[in-house]
């Protein structure tokens, strides 16, 4: 049987960062049948995890303003630790080059108050070999388009400094953007900003879905009482389209999208609203709201081997598999899962 077919019959293996009830942070590879397959204790809270193409290794990142990263082999090898430069910190997200050789991470050059993309050589112990501009403030999530050369970056637009904890320093003037960068040259290919009246809609998370449609999720930092739509769609060369949810759902998002992930086929995207205990589902081609699942503090999302199906992880300890029709199967766990999860295999 071809590997792609066989995969449908094997329980998915995921990876995510989390905390146990003693306050110990870790990142783990696990499946829903056997639990942990491999766990690594982290020195502080983690955030996202990136899979190295080839599937032999995954990397967990410190949550902002942390500085550590750790690459964990799927097999038995020793984890490789690396750190941000002394005048940088991570924002918690990273992505590998298509060939798995380089790792790109969103970082804060807080001396200049600008976002940068750090470049590390995965085959040389994750030694940093360079960086290029993120073309904005507060780059957060990032991904590669299908050409393997175009990177899309969600610039949240919010200025932070590690000396001010997680304080946000420029809310009145913030200008989030979605930028496309050529990773060969570091050149800016396209920059999309939201309409002026939506400048306080911080673009934080994104997923590349079918036909390279970028679906992005926002967190609103604007005036009290406003509850703008939070999910947007963008295709290269077009204007971003922000799509509202039905009125009865909108408020329950609590102005906060925590994670965005495309399903296995790329036609459906899930976007979580952990503060509202909801996960929303979207039809990418039609740019249409499909419905919700309800899971308290449910934030982490990963595709499974099946279309329209997702892993959901919760800070309240539940793991769940869910379908875009809203059906949900829960599994208890001993951990408070952090905001993100990935499918390893």
């Amino acid at each position, binding site marked *: 049987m071809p590997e792609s077919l066989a995969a449908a019959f094997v329980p998915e293996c995921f990876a995510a960062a*989390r*905390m*146990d*009830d*003693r*306050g*110990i942070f*870790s990142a*783990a590879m696990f499946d829903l049948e056997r*639990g*942990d397959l491999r*766990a*690594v*204790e982290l020195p502080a*809270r983690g955030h996202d995890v990136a899979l190295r193409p080839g599937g032999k290794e995954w990397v967990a990142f410190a949550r902002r303003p942390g500085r550590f990263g750790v690459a964990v082999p799927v097999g038995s090898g020793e984890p490789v630790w690396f750190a941000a430069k002394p005048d940088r910190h991570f924002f918690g997200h990273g992505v590998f080059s298509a060939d798995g050789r380089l790792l790109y991470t969103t970082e804060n050059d807080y001396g200049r108050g600008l976002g940068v993309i750090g470049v590390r050589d995965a085959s040389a112990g994750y030694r940093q070999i360079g960086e290029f501009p993120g073309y904005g403030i507060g780059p957060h999530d990032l991904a590669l388009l299908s050409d393997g050369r175009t990177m899309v970056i969600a610039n949240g637009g919010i200025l932070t400094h590690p000396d001010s904890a997680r304080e946000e320093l420029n809310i009145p003037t913030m200008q989030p953007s979605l930028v496309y960068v050529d990773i060969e040259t570091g050149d800016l290919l396209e920059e999309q900003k939201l309409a002026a009246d939506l400048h306080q809609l911080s673009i934080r998370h994104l997923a590349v879905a079918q036909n390279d449609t970028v679906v992005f999720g926002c967190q609103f930092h604007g005036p*009290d*009482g*406003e*509850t703008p739509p939070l999910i947007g769609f963008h295709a290269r060369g077009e204007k971003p389209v922000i799509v509202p949810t*039905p*009125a*009865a*759902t*909108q*408020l*329950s998002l609590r102005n906060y999208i925590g994670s965005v992930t495309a399903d296995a086929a790329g036609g459906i995207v899930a976007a979580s609203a*952990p*503060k*509202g*205990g909801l996960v929303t589902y979207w039809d990418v081609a039609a740019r249409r709201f499909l419905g919700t699942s*309800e899971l*308290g*503090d449910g*934030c982490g999302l990963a595709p499974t081997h099946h279309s329209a199906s997702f892993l959901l992880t919760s*800070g*309240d*300890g539940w793991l769940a598999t869910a379908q875009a029709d809203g*059906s*949900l*199967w*829960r*599994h*208890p*766990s*001993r951990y*408070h*899962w*952090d*905001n993100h999860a990935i499918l390893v295999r």
Partner: protein
Amino acid sequence: MGPMRPLLLAAVLLCAGLPSAHAEADHGAIARAALDNVIRPGYDALTVSTGRLKDKAEALCAAPSAAALTDAKEAFAATVESWSKVEIFRFGPINKEHRYERMFYWPDPKGIGLRQVKAALAKNDETVTQADMLVGKSVALQGLPALEYLLYGDGAETLARGDPEVGFRCSFAASVATNVDRIARGVAEEWRDGAEYSKLFLSPGPDDPLYRAPKDVTLELYKAFTSGIELVRDQKLGKPLGTSAETARPRLAAFWRSGLTFPNMVGNLEASARSLPRAALPASLPRNRPASNSRSCSTSTVSSTCFVPPMSRSPRPCAIRHSATNWKPCVSR
């Protein structure tokens, strides 16, 4: 992951300090007791209160008077009291169709819901006066916080008068009361004997969606137990009180307009206390437990009798607690 929740010492003791920690509890009996003694009576009582609330709101609109307004307020207070005793249960049919937030959109630190209620009042938005249409509107217009403002907020005294322009506010209130009653009845109905949620709760199987084993239900009840206490401590007391008189924000308190803040918290705590049968709780928690006992909660022991409820959101860094007590991490390395 939401706010970090470093554990409370007692929480660990609950897990590791008991000699019998690994004796399997009768999870089926725990679920049955919770359902029969707390959950079903709780929602049934809520429907009694909401039914009366609906009647009193309609009576107020039909014949406005000071006495009728007092009756409606009393029915509202009784509804809040009933709600308080099921509010901590964030599972089951209440966790469907946005029912929870439609019933109780809270906390609302930025007053989004209040703005929406005021806006609906200002423009006489007739759609909010029909319960069938209200369900499709913002959750903040549909539940107890909205109704509280209508009955107790600015201009509520006009409800006692028969002025034609007051009719809209009263119809809005009656429509919310009807909506609240429908939500309560829907939830109560779906917890009945033989209904799907009851089956899932009482006899979970490995392919079931909510709980795959009876111990998962015990875990759910433990979560309700601890989160109910956290809710009162962190959200209902902590947020309004702040860290000083200067940082206190009394209007963050739930139900401050109706003066039901404390009855609401009392109800939450009573429900927390009753959410688990006595037999499921340790009789006492030992003090100064030797660190070595914490080994009993290793990664290999994933059982609901050995999980640690997150009880504390203390701002103290966990690492300090960790080193001070020599606890061993549960995570494999």
